C-alpha cells in the first residue's frame, strides 16, 4: 500500500494535521500567527546549513527552528514590541535562508520544494519522520492540555493554580519547532503557518469547546490534505498550495455556516 506515492502523500498530510490541529488552536488563541511564520521561515536557513554541512535536513531545520522559536519567546518575555520584532525576524530569516541556500550547489533548481513543499515525493523514511514528529507533538499537547489552556487564558490565573506559564510557553515553542521540521516536506516553509492557522480558524466557527476546536482542526486539516491532493492530481496543480487552498475554502464555508448555526 505504501508503494503508492499518492497513499504516502495522503498519510503524510493526515499525520501532519494530527499535530497542526491542536497546535494551530493554540497559535490562534495566543495570537502567535506571526510567531509561527518566523519559526517556519527560519527553516529555510536550516535547510541551507544542513546541506552545506552534510547533516540531515530534518536535523538542520529542527535546530534552526528551535533557535528561532526560543529567541522570539525570549524577546517576547523581555517585552520587545512583538509585531515589529517578529516582522523583522520572520522576513530576515527567510532572506538569509534564501541567500545561504544560493551558495549550496545544485539546490537552486528545486528551491520551490522547500518553499512550497513536495508532498508527492514523500518517502517511507519521510513518512516515519512526519508521523513520529506529529505523534510526539500531539502527545505533548495532550499531556499538558489543561495547564496550557489555563496559561493561555490568563498567566496570573495559571500561576495562582500552581502552574508555571513560562514552562507551558516553552512546551508550545518546542512543539512549534518540531512541527516546522516535519511540515517542511509537506507544505513548505512559506505555508506551514497557514497549515496551523487556517484549519483552526475554520474550526472556531463551529466549535463549542477548546477540545472540539482542536479535534475539528485535525479533521479539517486532514480533509484539506486529501482534497488538495485530489485537486493536484486532477488539475496538475502544486500540491502544497492546493492543500492550503482547500483549507481556505473550508474556512470560508465555516465563516458562512457558523453564524447561521448559532442562531
Amino acid at each position, binding site marked *: 500500500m505504501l508503494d503508492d506515492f499518492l497513499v504516502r502523500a495522503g498519510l503524510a498530510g493526515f499525520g501532519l494535521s494530527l499535530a497542526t490541529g491542536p497546535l494551530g488552536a493554540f497559535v*490562534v*488563541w495566543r*495570537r502567535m500567527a506571526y510567531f509561527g511564520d518566523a519559526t517556519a521561515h527560519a527553516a529555510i536557513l536550516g535547510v541551507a546549513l544542513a546541506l552545506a554541512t552534510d547533516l540531515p535536513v530534518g536535523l538542520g531545520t529542527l535546530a534552526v527552528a528551535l533557535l528561532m522559536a526560543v529567541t522570539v519567546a525570549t524577546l517576547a518575555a523581555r517585552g520587545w514590541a512583538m509585531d515589529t520584532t517578529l516582522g523583522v525576524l520572520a522576513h530576515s530569516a527567510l532572506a538569509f535562508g534564501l541567500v545561504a541556500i544560493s551558495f549550496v550547489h545544485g539546490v537552486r533548481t528545486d528551491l520551490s520544494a522547500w518553499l512550497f513543499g513536495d508532498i508527492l515525493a514523500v518517502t517511507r523514511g519521510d513518512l516515519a519522520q512526519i508521523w513520529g514528529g506529529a505523534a510526539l507533538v500531539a502527545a505533548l499537547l495532550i499531556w499538558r492540555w*489543561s*495547564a496550557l*489552556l*489555563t496559561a*493561555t*487564558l*490568563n498567566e*496570573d*490565573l*495559571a*500561576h*495562582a*493554580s500552581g*502552574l508555571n506559564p513560562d514552562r507551558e510557553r516553552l512546551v508550545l515553542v518546542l512543539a512549534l519547532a518540531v512541527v516546522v521540521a516535519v511540515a517542511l516536506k509537506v507544505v513548505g516553509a512559506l505555508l506551514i503557518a497557514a497549515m496551523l492557522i487556517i484549519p483552526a*480558524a475554520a474550526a*472556531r466557527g463551529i*466549535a*463549542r*469547546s*477548546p477540545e*472540539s*476546536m482542536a479535534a475539528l482542526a485535525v479533521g479539517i486539516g486532514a480533509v484539506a490534505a486529501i482534497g488538495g491532493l485530489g485537486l493536484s492530481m486532477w488539475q496538475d496543480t502544486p500540491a502544497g498550495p492546493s492543500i492550503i487552498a482547500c483549507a481556505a475554502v473550508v474556512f470560508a464555508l465555516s465563516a458562512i455556516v457558523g453564524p447561521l448555526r448559532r442562531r
Partner: protein
Amino acid sequence: MSRLPDRGRGMSLIAADHACVRFAGTEVLHDISLRVEPAEIVTIVGPNGSGKSTLLRALLGITPLAAGRVSRRPGLRIGYVPQRLQIDRTLPMTARRFLSLPRRHAPAASAAALARVGVPEVADRQMADLSGGQFQRVLLARALLTEPDLLILDEPTQGLDQPGEAAFYRLIDEVRHDTGCAVLMVSHDLHVVMSASDRVICLNGHICCEGTPQVVSHAPEYRAMFGLGTQGALALYRHEHDHDHTHDHGHDHSHYRGHGPARPRGADTRGHGHA
C-alpha cells in the same frame, strides 16, 4: 491567646514581612508588612498606580520580591480572582468548562458552585457572551471550587454598576460566612469597601495607614489621598469633627499634596486627638 508575637505570626494565613518590589530599579512597593488572619475580610485601597495589584501578585508569588519575605501557612489553599480576564473570542469556552481549569471538577460540584454564586443558568453559555456581573460570579465560582482558605480578589467589581457592585460584595460576605474563608481584596470603590471589610489597608507604594474601616476613614493619610469630596464623602462627613486617630507622623506626606480634591482643613498641621 497568650502566644508570643512570633508564634502568633505563624497562625496567619499569609504574611508579608518588610516586602519590597522593584521594577527596573524603581521601588513600587516599599517595606510592606501585613498579615491576613482566618475568616477576616481585608481590603486594600489606594489610588491608581499605588501598587495594589502588584502587592497581590507579590503575595501570590507571581512577582518576585526585591527584599523581605512572604510566608504562607503550610498547605494554604488560595482561590484567586484576577483583575481583568479577557477571554479571546477565538477561544470557545463554556462556563462549565472554565470551572474545570486546570483541575477537573465533578459536574455536580460545578453546578453547586454556580448556584452558590447565583448564576446556575450560565453553565452551558459561552464565557465571552456573559455579562460583566455573570462573568465575575463565574470567576468567583471557579475560585470557590478549590475550597480555599483564602480568597484573593483583584478589583472584583470593575465594570459592574453600583447595584451589581453592592450585590457582589454581599455575596463575598455570605461566602465568607458559609465557608469560613478569609478574603483579601483590592478595591477603589471606597464606600462599598468600607462597609464590607473588617480591616482596610491604605496603600500608596507603602502602607499609609491600616485598621478598621472606622479608624482608616479618620486617618489623615487616607483623607489626604481620597479627599472628602469623593465617593467616600457621605460616609465620612459625619466623622469630620471627632478626629480621634493616633498616628506616627514620622514619614513624608508631601507627595499626597494636591491629590485629593479637598484636603481636610489643616490636617497635617493641627494636633491629632488621641483615643
